[in-house]
């Protein structure tokens, strides 16, 4: 691995505001003895995880999440982690059903430490990418803090920002739309049909691969 890319990775690890940085550091120290300590190690592999979530603002939060592992060539859609995280007993049944239909999830998991742990382990310490990632991570991290006591510490790449940067470089005058569909059109990728979370995470993964190649 070239020195440049190594540096990139560590810079990415320290990105974000000072507050999140300090938060992450204190989380790391607190979890040093827990089974999740390895999540705070810097990642040295080639893979990333594309994340997409949709949340509903009810009394009981209902969040549909999809995470897909990708490397330089492949998007491993066949081994994706897709679920709706909600308290199955107390959450609004209609909202839950709507999530299943609209976002294409088939399982509902209670936001217990165990279930959140499987997601955290699926993601591991791999960097996260996603379309407007911070927005979706906000909701997810709230759950994580409640269930596991820490927010996801992974390095993050917001594909929407990447897209804006590339586009501005190519066409300085262009008005940039913030919808993922437009970005997919712009880079001639297959369009998204429906709103499934798996679809959106795959789309952001493809967009990331495409933009990476554009940057080279």
């Amino acid at each position, binding site marked *: 691995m070239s020195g440049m890319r190594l540096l990139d990775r560590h810079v990415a690890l320290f990105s974000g505001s000072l507050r999140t940085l300090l938060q992450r550091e204190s989380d790391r120290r607190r979890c040093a003895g827990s089974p999740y300590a390895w999540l705070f190690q810097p990642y040295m592999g080639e893979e990333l995880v594309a994340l997409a979530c949709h949340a509903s603002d009810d009394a009981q939060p209902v969040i549909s999440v999809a995470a897909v592992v990708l490397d330089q*060539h*492949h*998007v*491993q*859609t*066949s081994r994706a982690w897709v679920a709706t995280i909600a308290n199955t007993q107390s959450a609004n049944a209609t909202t839950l059903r709507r999530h299943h239909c609209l976002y294409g999830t088939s399982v509902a998991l209670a936001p217990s430490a165990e279930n959140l742990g499987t997601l955290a382990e699926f993601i591991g310490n791999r960097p996260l990418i996603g379309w407007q990632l911070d927005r979706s991570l906000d909701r997810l991290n709230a759950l994580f803090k409640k269930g596991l006591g820490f927010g996801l510490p992974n390095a993050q790449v917001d594909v929407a920002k990447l897209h804006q940067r590339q586009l501005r470089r190519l066409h300085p005058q262009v008005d940039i739309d913030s919808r993922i569909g437009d970005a997919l059109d712009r880079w*001639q*990728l*297959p369009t*998204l*049909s429906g709103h*499934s979370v*798996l*679809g*959106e995470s*795959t*789309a952001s*993964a*493809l967009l990331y*691969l*495409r933009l990476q*190649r554009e940057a080279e």
Partner: protein
Amino acid sequence: MVEVELSQLPFTLLDEEGRDHVRRGVDLAYFDRDEIILETGQAGECVFLIHKGEVAELDTTLPASSARIGHYTAGDLFGAISILNGKSRYRFQAEQECLCYIMPKALFIQLCRHYPEFESFFKQSLSHKTRLLTEKRAEGGVTMAGFMLAKVSECMREPLLMDASADIASAVKQLNDSHADSLLVNTQGKYGMVTKTDLLNGLVLGDCSNATPVEAVAHYSLVTVTPNQYLFEALVLMTRHKVARVVVMEQELLKGVVELTDVLSYFSSRSYVVSLQVEQANSLEALAAASQRTPELVKALMAQGVKLRFAMDLLAALNGRIISKAWSFTVDETHHSDSCMMVMGSEGRGEQILKTDQDNGLILADDSQWPDVAEQMQALTQTLIRLGYPPCPGNIMVSNPEWVGSVSQWKRNIVKWVSARDGDSLMKLAILLDAHAVAGNPALLESVREELFERCSRDELLLSYFARTALRFSTPLTLFGSLKKPQHGIDIKKGGIFPIVHGVRTMALERRIKATSTLDRLDALAADGRLDRRFADDLGEALALFTELRLKQQLQELDTAIDKRTNRVVVQELSSLERDLLREAMHIVKDFKQRLSHRYHLEYS
């Protein structure tokens, strides 16, 4: 995003559960332009289904110009055969950025196990490809299997047996009469062979005269084979004994002779055999037998990949010879100089490869005396039907008195048709314009053609009416320039061949070009400056492609013995390369139509 398009083959062979497995089991992969997806010899780990982009299949052992052996676009599937074979035989390389669904090997094999039809789809295309490859390798014409399995009896000639005491002069005469190269003599129960070379040596170097008996020059050490031996054994014997002919004997009985030219022609395309058979035919039966063999010749030529233009020329020459032979059998020799038989339509243009209906007519000299012409022409038409030329549904045949006339009658007809200018007259003019003399006195046709040019080539109004027919059928392209894909196929004759042929015919009429074949007319138009060379070449290639596709279709129908000929090509059944070619060719036709409507002012008609 993972909504894989599973509504086409081979996934339609799965049930809903199987398709669900596929949907859950596929990954996505992204390949850059020129990136190698699967290398030659690499183990097949997954099946690729292209979602977007193009992939080329390259045989790296071939030179770069012919290395590209396959082309895959969105919706196509590759890599399955690499899994079944264990490793990839060719290199798959992305030609554009590609997005592929990849199905892991384990899933693919599991599907194959559960759904035998799904598996047989790939097995079938594997054998299909293997067959294509062997056919490509066996570029010796008849496929390798045909070559190895042909028996001597399939290729031998009738022996030409002469009395041993006959003199050299009569032997030479006999050889010439029967278009043979050698003859056999029988002395005291032994056969001897006399070849043309033997005769020549005997007469020039030896001390023979015309009256010497042939047995003096004959050879008695003959190389023999039996009719059941393989033909290549005969070839081996010829090579070993340095002779050009072997004698076929069966239990001491003379059966025939196999000549080197026959063997070689058999292995190449049989063209020589068929044309020889036509020349040698001295009865209608023999001629009919020779005529029956032309489809076989066409198949052999196509298998060899002979350029269609040359195949058409060869076939036109053969058909011309057959018809003129038929003519000489039925028509008395005294009438040959004051009449001219012409073939018209596709036959006249020399573009008839398989025998379609006969279009022919007769021109008589103004001063000819031929009272029973009607009966004789009736007989001629019947003869041609026996030879395998079906009658013309439009009754454009010599048996129809309308298509028999003296030169001045024909000229009067032309004047009448030109002034009438209705659909029927225009069609008759078009038919006459393609006329080509096959028998009799061609000067008669020339004078009629001269009149036709005189009347038509400066008549802008007529030309405009004449050209309009070329636009009658629409080009099967969609609004976006891709091929229309109706279920029953596109009519390639109406959509492709007819506009080119008729448009070129109109231009040839305008420029007084005497050639009748469309390709020759295109050459002449380019030389004349009426069309630019590149466009003329493109049109010629497009026409050749259409004709070839149609011919393939017709040959298939010949095999399946469906007596109804169609001109329909089902686009979905073509390979993607052929599809591309067809689309390009259709665009050329469209362009040509625009030029025609510009030149002949057809915009508002």
